[in-house]
């Protein structure tokens, strides 16, 4: 089915962004309101599309719109086309819905910033790019959006680029993303080379004819792309530094939407991964590693935003793990993505609210006892907390436990390993999130006399409340009658549920809850019942020290890639100077040397020139003399 209104989803925020950027100072006064209205109207268009889809039977729900013929080379045809199906619409609603809430929040949060208009322009641009990413009907169209969100992320991380460290963080994120983008472009090239098409429908149709090797290559390259964009191991190092951006950016881009693009990509390419078991296993393993990796880092961070960033990394690890489990896990990966979008965005906004009240302090050791001063922030943050650690009946319980369950049921040693990792991750999640909540809201106050903690204005807490409602209810709603699973079924084609499973849902839930209780208890003992030093203790184990340094990921990258790269570059520079420049210089020296020799004939004396002429005449006569001999 075609639809004529899909284009507005992308065009509206793009227009808003262009207007604010090109309009300049003239739009300063109303730019933020305009951008918010644009975002809300995009949400409205999304809801309209959703309602249209609801009115159709399952198989007819995908809406398409061809904009124009983009590339036409021989048999290779790519249209700039948009497609919204059951998977995309979830993202559209999440992006525009959460995006609009964060726009509203930012009106207050950024009210003192001189560059607020530019900030909103970038936000609108991000919305446009992200919608293009999820609406593209081919890998190439997706790629355009993929690069667009990378650019938006770069611009927003470095929004306060007057601070060199922030600018560096933006650059780091951009470079890490570039590695992933290379994977995506390689995947597209392989797809074109083997299948001759890059549209989702075309690849899906022809995937059966391709060899398993080619599909595995495409899958691995798509996984590389996903690890870059979604901060998965081994390209996760940028996410912690990305917290340099304003907090609403962290909430929208680096928690709720952009970083989940990798999960979207894998889920969207389910037909490739289902046909390439090796790539699928790699996805699951990467997810499992990252969920533990992020959780461990999260335990050691004192910066509230970095702790949340590590948590995001870990939760996306769950999603990737889910997506790597094949048809059984896609729906739960998406479900966790959506619930995570609610509670993590809510918690980030809560962190922003805390910072707003605490003079932009981010060190949790300098918080404490804030629940009395920020009751609404505490309540919404607390609901998000309960959701992420998986306490029933909050959202995380439904989505995360399902992923753990599916992991255990993947079969064999693989299932047990992945399941155990996911279960351990749940326990650690409970520990570090409890730590965050206790350090921030409970215990004694540890802040300076200068800080005057206060509740944030309504424009800030209203979005937090709405997101908290989502954190509470979304999981419950999604699982009523397997609503989301059935909704997504036409896209991801789930396997029929068979009952001969290793662990039943009840067993998994009980196990997970028990581990969560252990994690929470440990955190309470360590941070609530004992004194928390204001300065982080230094006499800690090697393990803690490593976790504080992001488990040595930066050190590894620098030692393995940066230093050898610099050495190679220096070598190349030397080669360039010695060999290439040397050759050029040698030619120049030759010319100059011969010129110097010839120059001696240029005495300036007319008579010597006459002599040369005369010698020429002599030569001529000699030549005649010899030929007539």
């Amino acid at each position, binding site marked *: 089915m075609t639809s004529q209104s899909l284009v507005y989803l992308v065009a509206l925020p793009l227009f808003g962004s262009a207007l604010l950027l090109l309009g300049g100072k003239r739009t300063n006064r109303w730019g933020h309101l305009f951008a918010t209205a644009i975002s809300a109207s995009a949400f409205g268009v999304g809801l309209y599309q959703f309602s249209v889809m609801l009115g159709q039977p399952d198989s007819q729900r995908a809406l398409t719109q061809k904009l124009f013929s983009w590339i036409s080379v021989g048999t290779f045809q790519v249209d700039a086309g948009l497609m919204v199906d059951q998977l995309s619409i979830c993202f559209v609603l999440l992006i525009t819905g959460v995006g609009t809430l964060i726009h509203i929040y930012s009106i207050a949060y950024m009210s003192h910033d001189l560059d607020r208009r530019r900030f909103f322009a970038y936000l609108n641009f991000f919305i446009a790019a992200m919608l293009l990413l999820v609406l593209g009907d081919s890998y190439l169209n997706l790629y355009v959006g993929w690069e667009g969100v990378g650019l938006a992320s770069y611009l927003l991380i470095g929004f306060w680029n007057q601070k060199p460290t922030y600018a560096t963080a933006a650059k780091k994120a951009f470079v890490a993303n570039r590695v992933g983008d290379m994977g995506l472009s390689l995947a597209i090239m392989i797809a074109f080379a083997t299948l001759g098409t890059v549209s989702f429908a075309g690849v899906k149709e022809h995937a059966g004819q391709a060899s398993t090797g080619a599909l595995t290559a495409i899958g691995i390259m798509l996984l590389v792309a996903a690890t870059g964009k979604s901060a998965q191991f081994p390209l996760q190092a940028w996410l912690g530094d990305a917290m340099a951006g304003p907090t609403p950016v962290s909430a929208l881009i680096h928690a709720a939407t952009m970083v989940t693009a990798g999960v979207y990509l894998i889920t969207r390419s389910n037909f490739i991964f289902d046909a390439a078991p090796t790539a699928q296993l790699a996805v699951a393993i990467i997810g499992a590693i990252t969920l533990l990796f992020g959780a461990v880092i999260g335990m050691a961070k004192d910066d509230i935003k970095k702790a949340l960033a590590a948590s995001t990394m870990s939760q996306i690890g769950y999603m990737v793990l889910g997506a790597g489990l094949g048809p059984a896990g896609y729906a739960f990966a998406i479900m966790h993505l959506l619930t995570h979008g609610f509670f993590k965005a809510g918690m980030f906004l809560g962190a922003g609210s805390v910072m707003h009240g605490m003079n932009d302090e981010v060190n949790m050791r300098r918080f404490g006892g804030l629940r009395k001063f920020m009751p609404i922030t505490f309540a919404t943050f607390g609901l998000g907390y309960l959701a992420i650690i998986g306490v029933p009946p909050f959202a995380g319980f439904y989505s995360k436990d399902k992923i753990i369950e599916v992991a255990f049921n993947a079969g064999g040693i693989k299932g047990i390993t992945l399941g155990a990792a996911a279960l351990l991750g749940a326990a650690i999640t409970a520990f570090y999130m409890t730590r965050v909540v206790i350090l921030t809201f409970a215990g004694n106050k540890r802040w300076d006399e200068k800080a005057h903690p206060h509740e944030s204005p309504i424009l800030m807490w209203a979005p937090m409340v709405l997101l908290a409602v989502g954190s509470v209810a979304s999981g419950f709603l999604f699982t009523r009658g397997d609503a989301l699973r059935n909704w997504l079924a036409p896209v991801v084609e789930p396997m029929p549920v068979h009952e001969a499973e290793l662990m039943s849902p009840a067993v998994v839930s009980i196990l997970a809850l028990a581990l969560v209780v252990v994690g929470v208890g440990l955190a309470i003992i360590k941070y609530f019942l004992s004194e928390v030093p204001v300065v982080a203790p230094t006499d800690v184990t090697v393990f803690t020290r490593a976790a504080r340094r992001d488990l040595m990921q930066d050190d590894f990258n620098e030692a393995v890639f940066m230093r050898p790269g610099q050495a190679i570059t220096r070598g190349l520079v030397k080669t360039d100077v010695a060999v290439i420049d040397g050759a050029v210089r040698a030619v120049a020296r030759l010319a100059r040397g011969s010129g110097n020799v010839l*120059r001696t004939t*240029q*005495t*300036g*004396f*007319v*008579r010597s020139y*006459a*002599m040369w002429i*005369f010698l020429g*005449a002599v030569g001529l006569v000699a030549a005649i003399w010899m030929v007539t001999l």
Partner: protein
Amino acid sequence: MNAANYLYVSALLFTIGAIGVVVRRNAIVVFMCVELMLNASNLAFVTFARINGNLDGQVVAFFTMVVAACEVVVGLAIIVTIYRSRRSASVDDASLLKR
């Protein structure tokens, strides 16, 4: 006695003129040597006209004379100009056009 002897004289005069151009330093003498070379070639032309039995050689010699006259007029004017600014008629003194 045959007409070719004139050609030998012509060759000798031409050679002497060439040496003069190279060896002498006074611009006026250099010029005279150039004139000598032109005259030597004229003699050859006239001799050739006689040997060939037509007047084309003489016509060419005539034209050579006209061109030589032009050359003398312009060349001497240049010498006068140079002399006026440098107070010297030596071709070696005007040797700035080098390096």
